[in-house]
């Protein structure tokens, strides 16, 4: 019970931090309003999916280094398939790309289970492979995206009678919440979700309690691939093109997972914390930009923050292991 309180306390603390940052943003830029919030959510969207992909694998006791490359591959695949195609064709592209992410993620998991090579090495290898595949699909940034897909993340949700509140609910946020909940909520309440926490907490204990460790691990990686594919799609939707060289999604996802209260050892934490954490990290970037700091310097500060967060997380993990 006390652990539950502490865990929720961590998330609540993050939410408070987020609100404080919003207030600071308001102080820096008095005109910061609903429109800016919408663009923040749009910028967060691919990061949030990358974080979700990382979270589920970290909870299962692993780590997925191929998140960024997976997003790049799915993004260029979607962008090049939709390039010059009709609007309706995108209806086929979206499920295809999601299925691709699911399968590639499952392949990651299977390679780990079959070769018995540690997660970090296998996903490093698949990072190379997926990056190469992304370059094969699209040598340079390009492609296109269907208009209706772009429209799903631009603008706000109109709630009749409540124009004031609805201006603060961007469609991108709704899309994010729906996509994450559709997978996470049933998972968390199912036996499978419990198994994922179990193998992350102690693989041997889980095995002896009758949890199918290999199958659970493969499913965790498959779901991670699915989230990464959503991230890739979100990337294409927000930029309108596909880029074969991924951004710093890997480091950002690990940093957000650590900041979100998920132990890198596995078996602890939830999805809400990391998602709030990624909002916090992006809002810091927005603030730095609003303070008229050189974007390159912003990148340095952001990188330093992420490294510091990961160092802090590792330190905490080490301490808890010692005690």
């Amino acid at each position, binding site marked *: 019970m006390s652990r539950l309180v502490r865990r929720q306390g961590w998330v609540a603390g993050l939410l408070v931090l987020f609100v404080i940052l919003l207030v600071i943003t308001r102080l820096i830029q008095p005109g910061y309003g609903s429109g800016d919030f919408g663009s923040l959510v749009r910028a967060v969207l691919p990061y949030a999916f990358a974080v979700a992909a990382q979270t589920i694998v970290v909870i299962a006791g692993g*780590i997925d*280094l191929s998140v960024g490359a997976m997003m790049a591959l799915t993004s260029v695949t979607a962008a090049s398939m939709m390039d010059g195609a009709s609007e309706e064709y995108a209806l086929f592209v979206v499920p295809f790309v999601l299925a691709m992410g699911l399968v590639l993620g499952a392949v990651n998991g299977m*390679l780990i289970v079959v*070769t*018995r*090579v*540690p997660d*970090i*090495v*296998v996903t*490093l*290898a*698949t*990072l*190379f*492979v997926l*990056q*190469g*595949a*992304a*370059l*094969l*699909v699209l*040598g340079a940034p390009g492609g296109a995206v269907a208009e209706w897909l772009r429209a799903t993340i631009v603008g706000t949700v109109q709630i009749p009678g409540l124009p004031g509140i609805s201006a603060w609910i961007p469609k991108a946020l709704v899309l994010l919440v729906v996509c994450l909940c559709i997978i996470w909520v049933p998972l968390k309440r199912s036996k499978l979700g419990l198994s994922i926490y179990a193998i992350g907490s102690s693989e041997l204990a889980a095995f002896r309690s009758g949890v199918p460790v290999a199958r659970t691990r493969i499913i965790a990686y498959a779901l991670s691939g699915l989230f990464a594919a959503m991230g890739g799609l979100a990337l294409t939707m927000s930029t309108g093109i596909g880029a074969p060289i991924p951004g*710093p999604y*890997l*480091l950002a996802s*690990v940093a957000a997972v650590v900041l979100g209260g998920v132990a*890198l050892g596995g078996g602890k934490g939830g999805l809400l914390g990391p998602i709030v954490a990624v909002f916090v990290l992006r809002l810091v970037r927005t603030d730095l930009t609003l303070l008229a700091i*050189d974007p*390159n*310097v912003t*990148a*340095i500060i952001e*990188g*330093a923050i*992420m*490294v510091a967060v*990961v*160092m*802090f997380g*590792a*330190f905490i*993990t*080490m301490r808890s292991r010692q005690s």
Partner: protein
Amino acid sequence: MSTTAIQPVPLGRRVKRFMADRPLIPLIILLVILVVVLQILRPGIVNERWLANTVKFAIPLAILAGCQTMTMLTGGIDLSVGTVATMSAFIMATQVVNHDPGVAILIALVPAVLIGLVNGIGVGVFRVHPLIMTLGTSLIGTGCLQVYQRTVIASGAKIPPFLAWLGTGLTYGVPNALLLFVPIAILIVFTLNRTGFGRLLYAVGDNEGAARLSGVRYWQVITALYVISSVLAGITGLLYVGLIKAPSLSLAEPLVLPSVAAAVIGGTSIFGGRGGYTGTIIGALILTVLTTLLTILQMPEGARRILFGLIVLFVTAAYLRIIEDR
């Protein structure tokens, strides 16, 4: 006891044991096979000039792979070598406009030492996974380099003649770069095999807890290791810019992946405690020849990356099997 018949060892097991005991021989055989395939595909390509060129391009890769070898021996990896090499090359090329080449080189190696120090402290003291840590510092380093580029945009860049001589020159058909590489290689091999520091690296990688209980100061070893790795990467950058002759912000980035692959092919275990530098050198040669082969076959960059990824995966899995068998 001596009269009992010796159990016949199955051939597969024997081959495995042979590979585990003498990993260099299959590697050299592989290298020769690749060269022969190259000669068959393009008759006449293998000549003195080709040999010199291959060695010239293999040397920067081999030094970076040396960084990977040493860090992998402790169970780590250094993904920041590409950024460090690029930084030192770029800073040297821009500083040499206003300073003496020697001073410029010293200035260029400062960020290398700093990044190595941060890596070492992060890995050794805070116990961040080396992969994440070095990825993070390389991100920060790239950002710093971009900011730095703004400040020197007007001054231009040039390559000191002696670095160009070192990078591209030939003396009696032998690449001058060997003048730098041979001492470095001897030093690395000597350090790993004959000094206490080298033994500590193996010890830490083999069993960190045991090493710690035997009185090894883990964080000191790791910090020293990552600083050395970074300085080597910085030197590689200086050499590489002499070879490529065009300092850019992504100069040595394409070498990172092959450097990991070269160390893995050379028989260094990515889990630590096993391996050595001679295998890595041959691994670097194999990859350079393989790259030539892929270029001749007109394989795109993407296919090359896929191949390197698969090599890392399969070789690691194979080594795991060999170790498990013993």
